[in-house]
């Protein structure tokens, strides 16, 4: 009989809130140095997919919660034809909630967020590329635990719901926590609907040196610059009393030991109040302080408890899904979405075996924009090439333009920009 899994604590939310303007699909992709061979990629996918049992699933409807069941159908690689983070229709994808795409030199994995987070997606992509290269006859030496092999038996720790494992019972009523409304970027949605991605490539080590000189980390620097770009483009010349809030997903595996390949992240909101003129240095200071305090273990423990407690209460559990999902959607739209201006994720420097690095140019991460948060930002680094990707669902691109211009002028570094041109005449 097929194996089944409960959807993890964060994953349930994505099932509830996904709609046409919020695909909950993100993309992790690599640009290879050579053109991608479709047959080779398919062969690699066929041998890798069973290694990731919590990805090789289909979603089934339940009365109180949906659930995932192992999917025995074939998942075919597809040539990229539409915009990144396009909603995935399982009916057109043999039931799967993720896609493996290729286009010229790019191999991309697009995943419905309820399956896994960025860490899980990167692990899958690494194994897929390793297998792809090996099947092509390339000699790849792998030392240590840099990646998962397709012939390994998946450990039970990889399929666990780590939220449940680290949950601590608490008497705090998280429903009473007040959510502060954040400034929202407004714009004209693309017609036809779609996602425009603009990537900027910069030297990671050089940027790290610049950030260090300014006394902040790379994530803090980029976050501060994004806030400054939003401030410069939307409120510098007006009288605003707003707060710009950047939602930053935090990989909980770094604080709570876990090798789960399912979702295990929390979101930290870094907020800067704008009451008048503000400088980049002031923003950097505020971002740095908040990121440090909000990523300490106790704060993250509270976040885990909040996630789990809300779903563990009997009241939540016994309400049928047809009532629960609209309630979760309401909470998401009126609280979660309102508390942030933009989401920024930094997957960091991806740990790849040295022998694999020679085949890979760089990595890109595109996060789906949503109706209330129409611009999102994803960062990933491979081979000292940091790719900062802005995905947007609106025509207006001033914030992104301001970000890259200031990044280039402030650091003096070369920034190479390219786009998928969605919504633009070429």
């Amino acid at each position, binding site marked *: 009989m097929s194996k089944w899994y409960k959807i993890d604590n964060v994953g349930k939310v994505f099932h509830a809130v996904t709609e046409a303007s919020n695909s909950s699909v993100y993309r992790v992709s690599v640009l290879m140095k050579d053109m991608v061979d479709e047959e080779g990629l398919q062969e690699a996918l066929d041998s890798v997919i069973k290694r990731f049992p919590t990805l090789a699933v289909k979603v089934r*409807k339940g009365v109180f919660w949906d659930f995932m069941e192992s999917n025995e159908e074939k998942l075919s690689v597809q040539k990229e034809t539409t915009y990144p983070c396009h909603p995935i229709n399982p009916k057109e994808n043999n039931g799967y909630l993720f896609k493996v795409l290729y286009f010229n030199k790019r191999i991309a994995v697009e995943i419905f967020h309820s399956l896994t987070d960025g860490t899980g997606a990167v692990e899958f992509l690494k194994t897929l590329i390793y297998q792809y290269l090996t099947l092509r006859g390339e000699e790849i030496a792998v030392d240590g635990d840099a990646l998962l092999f397709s012939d390994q038996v998946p450990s039970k720790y990889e399929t666990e719901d780590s939220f449940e494992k680290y949950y601590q019972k608490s008497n705090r009523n998280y429903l009473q926590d007040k959510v502060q409304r954040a400034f929202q970027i407004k714009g004209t949605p693309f017609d036809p609907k779609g996602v425009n991605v603009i990537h900027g490539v910069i030297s990671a080590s050089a940027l790290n040196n610049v950030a260090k000189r300014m006394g902040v980390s790379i994530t803090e620097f980029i976050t501060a610059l994004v806030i400054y770009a939003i401030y410069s483009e939307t409120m510098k010349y007006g009288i605003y009393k707003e707060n710009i809030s950047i939602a930053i997903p935090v990989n909980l595996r770094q604080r709570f030991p876990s090798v789960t390949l399912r979702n295990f992240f929390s979101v930290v909101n870094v907020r800067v109040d704008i009451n008048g003129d503000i400088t980049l240095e002031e923003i950097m200071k505020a971002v740095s302080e908040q990121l440090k305090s909000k990523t300490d273990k106790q704060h993250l423990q509270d976040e885990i408890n909040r996630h789990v407690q809300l779903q563990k209460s009997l009241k939540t559990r016994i309400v049928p899904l047809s009532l629960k999902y609209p309630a979760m959607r309401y909470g998401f739209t009126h609280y979660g979405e309102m508390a942030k201006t933009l989401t920024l994720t930094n997957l960091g420097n991806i740990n790849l075996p040295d022998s694999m690095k020679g085949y890979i140019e760089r990595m890109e991460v595109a996060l789906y924009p949503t109706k209330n948060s129409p611009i999102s930002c994803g960062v990933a680094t491979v081979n000292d090439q940091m790719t900062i990707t802005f995905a947007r669902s609106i025509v207006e691109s001033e914030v992104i333009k301001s970000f890259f*211009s200031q990044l280039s*002028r402030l650091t003096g570094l070369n920034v190479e*920009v390219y786009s998928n041109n969605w919504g633009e005449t070429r």
Partner: protein
Amino acid sequence: MNYCNHCAVSINHVTCPLCHRKVAESIDNEVKLYPDYMTMKKRRTFIAKVVAFLSITMASTCFVINLLVNADYLWSLYVVGGAVYLWVTMNHTLLSSAHTGAKIILQVISLSSVLVIMDFTSGFQRWSVNFAIPLIIIMATLLTTIIILKKRVHWRDYMGYTFVMFVIGFIPIGLYISGIATVLWTCVGTSLYALLTLIGMLLFSYKTIKEEFIRRFHV
């Protein structure tokens, strides 16, 4: 590689993706990074809209003519019922990607409703509740059973719909008890058939059904 002086970035586009200024006449002959997107025309949505509009036009025109000419005999309800049924069949049964089980159930409901309206309009001789509805339910249950037997691997996907069909199978008995239907054997026959289908499923696949219940009802 081109350079946009305005944005201070290197670009491999003719037009800067940031400021949309034209910065060069051509780009280096490099491999394209993204495909040229084609706007997909939603042909299916268009057909569905045409069917909906034709159905509404047909039904409303007939209804108005009926009221103006002879309001005592509501013959236009045949047309309205037929139009609604046509719309359901086109939009759900033929064009949608809904589960086959859901399509069968909606067909049972819509076809039964149309036949009741027709029966009612023509003097309510009860042929719809006595014969037509029981027959439709038996045929639908049989169809579901055949699909399950043919698609053994995926039969659990149909389990929920089979249970719904089982419940629907008892509607004719309800109609008889409430006095709406007057022929006992067709009503009892339908319910017995539904019951036998359920017993058969439980007998041959008890373990699978139990497991399916655990999954579907987990809290």
